[in-house]
């Protein structure tokens, strides 16, 4: 089990690093769908998302002026939230499986 935990911890730390630090070096060009929509001419059909004024909208923390810090913090929050929700879900599913047997 120790080897397993080490592996999981390494993967989690790597995810934090990628989302918290490396994300600042990501390309800011439009992604494939956005580019195609812009080129062909239906990008303006996009509607404002209901959460677009949210605290973390567009991978930035509202109120944090420093862009690096803002993106990095949003990434770290996203990694922790995704890890919590997904691991929780999979552990519950696993437990149900055990109960059925």
């Amino acid at each position, binding site marked *: 089990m120790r080897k*397993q935990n080490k*592996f*999981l911890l390494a*993967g*989690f730390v*790597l*995810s*934090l690093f*990628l*989302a918290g630090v*490396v*994300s600042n*070096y*990501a*390309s*800011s*060009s*439009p*992604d*494939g*769908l956005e*580019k*195609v*929509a812009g*080129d*062909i*001419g*239906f990008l303006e*059909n*996009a*509607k*404002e*998302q*209901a*959460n*677009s004024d*949210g605290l*973390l*909208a*567009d*991978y930035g923390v509202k109120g944090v002026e420093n862009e690096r810090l803002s993106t990095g913090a*949003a*990434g770290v*929050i*996203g*990694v922790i939230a*995704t*890890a919590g*929700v*997904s*691991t*929780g*879900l*999979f*552990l519950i*599913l*696993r437990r*149900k*499986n055990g109960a*059925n047997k």
Partner: protein
Amino acid sequence: MHIPDGFIDIPTSVAFAGIAATGVAISLKGAKSSLDEKTAPLAGLTATFIFAVQMLNFPVAAGTSGHLLGGALAAVLVGPWAASLALTVVLLMQALLFADGGLTALGLNVFNMSLVGVWVGYAIFILVKKLLPKNKSSVSIAAFLAGLISVPFAAAGFVLQYAIGGTATFSISQVLTAMLGTHFLIGIGEGVITALAVGAVMASRSDLVYGYKGTTQTLETRVKE
């Protein structure tokens, strides 16, 4: 690849939300019987890693970027059922917390990335692995092709949705050509990242890799013969 609100009309979005919900319900059942105490935490880590890497847009052509979708990667690491769930959790987080991908478009995005991306990736992986010798590097090659091919298929999912309920009137063939061309390029990046990530897990914990388990058994049998 995340469809915003407004590209596809509401009736079509609702219909795809229904298909997506059905797919997720079936995946919940499938994952229940395929997860054990070792693979359940790995499935959580897979979702987490995919969330992080989806933030890392890489340039593909002038003024265009792409990012990992992760469907093929997740399918190889934890199997298609848990993979669909992992991708769905990622999409939910992105839409609800980060306003990335529309809310009415959630079903459309789950269909393209959590269902089409995962299952096409998984099918290609199994097919290629069958054609190659049974060793670790074959797993990486199969993972590369699975990643590469899964992306244009997910993009084709959008074109299907556009054809049924697009709010714009541009020709379907024009959208299809542009989407497939761009996403083939993004697919190359997807393939490279998928192969590297699978290779890294294979190097440290090949016993955890869903897509490698069958291979080891076959190898052992051959040695005995």
